[in-house]
């Protein structure tokens, strides 16, 4: 059995930043376990610009952003095992992994950072009826095929879901000479970043249809078309009579990401049903002491910059925990209310004078939006913003003057 002070599962941007922060916080034996042949996670296939505007104040591509962190690894004594897949995490922090080179590995860790990212929701989860032909892909898989393998999945494309990956792939497929007929979005708004709607769709004259979904898939062998329909804004049910057949050979699905928490569930870690990630404290510690989580495995982020920041918190805290310096305090729950769909962290250790950042998302568009942070019947903070949409993660810094009661975040229309 190997041992490690901090074992980091996943070598995407979250894992990299967490490992580096653990190193800077004084941890000695740090190990990154990554199932892919290369570090960088999903960034490897994101060859477009738009990473690092906040963190590096510079526009980088995905691989460039990852490279900045990988360079820093060289100076730090951090062991990296690639092509190594973690299969199990036990309650006593034993990590079990396999790799062709190292064989069957067991690592006893003092602290573990979960940084496994997320996976895409597939057609099945949406229960789209019809046939099961070739030509239906998740947008991320199509991105991998195009950007990493140089392969084109199709020529006449419909995209379901206006999340960022869908938008980016709409542009990529048009650039590759495919005809992107439309992007359909079930909601009355896009969950993607506004800059992507402009740069990816408008600049390429690709129509975006809100309150619209795909209700049937046609074609026995290869996809031949989809039936789209408008949906009722409230019930989300297709409106009878609004169906339209759209011929296409490819359907790309960009309908949401699901944090990859199979390992966390195995270890009995408590999951927030809204985020799909672990419930964590301000140090990103999960319900299993010594296990921390950050990045897309904790909650889905739009911007990698936020991932890096969050991972640094988790990595440094993991290093402190490994050295027996885990901070404590009275635990207070954090609750989402009104328009707020979720808040991370979900609980905090109240410590006099500590300034905390809460990340949250709203469940619908608010324009203008009024955010209030309450505790013990008192308002800690109130703020106005021109618009808040589900597509963009919001954050707020709050100073806790003294140990308080349950903290509540509320967003309302004004």
């Amino acid at each position: 059995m190997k041992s490690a002070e901090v074992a980091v599962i996943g070598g995407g941007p979250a894992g990299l930043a967490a490992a580096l922060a653990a190193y800077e916080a004084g941890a000695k034996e740090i190990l990154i376990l990554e199932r892919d042949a290369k570090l960088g996670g999903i960034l490897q296939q994101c060859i477009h610009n738009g990473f690092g505007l906040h963190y590096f104040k510079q526009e980088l591509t995905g691989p460039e952003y990852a490279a900045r962190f990988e360079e820093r690894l060289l100076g730090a004594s951090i062991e990296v095992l690639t092509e190594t897949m973690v299969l199990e995490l036990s309650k006593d922090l034993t990590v079990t992994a396999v790799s062709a080179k190292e064989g069957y590995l067991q690592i006893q860790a003092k602290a573990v950072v979960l940084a496994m990212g997320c996976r895409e929701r597939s057609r099945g989860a949406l229960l789209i009826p019809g046939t099961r032909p070739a030509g239906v892909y998740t947008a991320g898989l199509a991105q991998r095929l195009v950007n990493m393998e140089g392969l084109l999945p199709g020529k006449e494309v419909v995209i379901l879901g206006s999340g960022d990956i869908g938008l980016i792939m709409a542009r990529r497929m048009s650039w590759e000479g495919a005809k992107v007929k439309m992007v359909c979005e079930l909601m009355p708004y896009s969950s993607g970043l506004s800059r992507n709607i402009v740069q990816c769709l408008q600049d390429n004259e690709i129509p975006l249809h809100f309150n619209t979904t795909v209700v049937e898939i046609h074609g026995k062998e290869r996809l031949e078309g989809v039936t789209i329909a408008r949906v009722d804004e409230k019930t989300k049910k297709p409106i009878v009579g609004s169906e339209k057949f759209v011929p296409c050979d490819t359907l790309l699905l960009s309908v949401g990401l699901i944090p990859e928490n199979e390992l966390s569930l195995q270890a009995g870690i408590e999951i927030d049903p809204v985020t799909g990630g672990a419930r964590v404290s301000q140090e990103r510690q999960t319900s299993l002491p010594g296990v921390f989580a950050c990045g897309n495995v904790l909650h889905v982020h739009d911007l990698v910059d936020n991932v890096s920041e969050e991972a640094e918190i988790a990595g440094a805290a993991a290093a402190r925990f490994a050295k027996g310096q885990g901070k404590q305090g009275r635990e207070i729950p954090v609750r989402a209310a009104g328009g707020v769909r979720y808040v991370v962290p979900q609980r905090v250790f109240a410590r006099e004078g500590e300034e905390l950042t809460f990340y949250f998302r709203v469940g619908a568009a608010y324009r203008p939006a009024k955010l209030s942070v309450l505790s013990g019947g008192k308002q800690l903070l109130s703020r106005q913003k021109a618009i808040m949409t589900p597509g963009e993660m919001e954050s707020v810094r709050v100073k806790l003057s003294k140990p308080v009661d349950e903290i509540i975040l509320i967003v309302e229309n004004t």
Partner: protein
Amino acid sequence: MFDVLVIGAGVVGCAVARELSRYALRVAVAEAGPDVACGASKANSAIVHAGYDCEPGTNMARLNVRGNAMFGALCEELAVPLKRTGSLVLAFSDEEMESVRRLYESGLKNGVPGLKILDAEACHAMQEGLNPEVKGALYAPTGGITSPYELTIALFENARQNGTEFFFESPVLAARAIEGGYELDLGQKMLQARYVVNAAGLYADQISALFGDKCFKIHARKGEYILFDRAVSGFAKTVLFQAPGPLGKGVLVAPTVHGNAYIGPTAVEQADKSDTSVRREAIDELSKAASRSVPTLPLRGAITLFAGLRAMPEPHDFIVGLSPKNPRLVQAAGICSPGLTSAPAIAEEVAKALSLAGLDLEEKTGFDPIRREEKAFREMNGDERAAAIAFDPAYGRIICRCETVPEAEILRAIRATPGVPTLDGVKRRARAGMGRCQGGFCSSRVLELIARERNIPMEELTKSGGRSKLLVGRTREDDE
């Protein structure tokens, strides 16, 4: 000239081929599709039925009960999963309790062992989350579940290992009587055989007609399903039927041998024998019907929809045996449910019919009934995994993360797939792509492995043969 040509490589055709491979015969199987298990045998309920619901005295009743009794030994020999979960037929009213009692009676007539009528309490003890209105149930301990496509693949591999020849993408198009047998047109080639076994599923009536027997018709009845992620599948620990009642036959709630649960099937009559699409209405129909058995179904944990077509014979019974119109044609036709369960018994009776028709069944030496399968990586313990990787490092490269399938197993599946392996063919052999992400992560990696292993450009690979190409070409940068 072959002694026997079997038409169709579903579970029935493959079971017949494997049975005939015990004897000193030259046997061929002609299959229209690119692989075995392309028809009903890949998409069905996977239940090894006990046999209480078939009309006593029918072929179905006899072959079901006999097939069920043969299943254990067969799955053992062929290393195919079988779980005797037992099955319940739930009743929700006094009327339905009556029909449960009638099933019990017909079960006794059919010779089904171990049947019992359970009270509500005993039902709830067997399965948490049942509808509190359950009045009681018929319990059949011999009911079970298997993996229909794995069984078909195993029968195929064992038959081939014992000398049977298989021809894929070889639809039987025409037949001409010749001296001592028939000449068959398989499109790309001609083939001669002394006897023909018709196991062509939905198309068995057309095949039969080629040989002058028009005694029956087959029509398609679709069955649609919703499959659930393992993580939410605890609601189906045993097979839950519903008592036949005024609301029809009801739908099943059942586990699979791989730990998933499903609800289904529907029953939709249709003229088109190739339409396996899932209708829009199916989702509501299924969840409504299934929630009678289990009121809180985790629909958000669904991972896929699928449908299969039952080959419904008219008149309604399995047609097994020598054709009354043609002494060289043996039928294994109209094999709707419980055809999977009955397949081993059908194969036995087909062999008998061939012998009656004049074919010599001489047991050959060297017939090996055992199919040797490596234990699946996902079922290994730590020591076994360590040993497997030490033996072959390709066990250390996990390709399908949801089902924990290593490269070693994908390569084995590629090598075992006839012709040009399809994505679906590899999936059915290695389980890669069957999990919660439905291939989102592994399919491009599996394609790469097929391309590398068979030295075929990725753009030429298909999902399921024919025109089901997965890619249309290379990107622009690559052209330059």
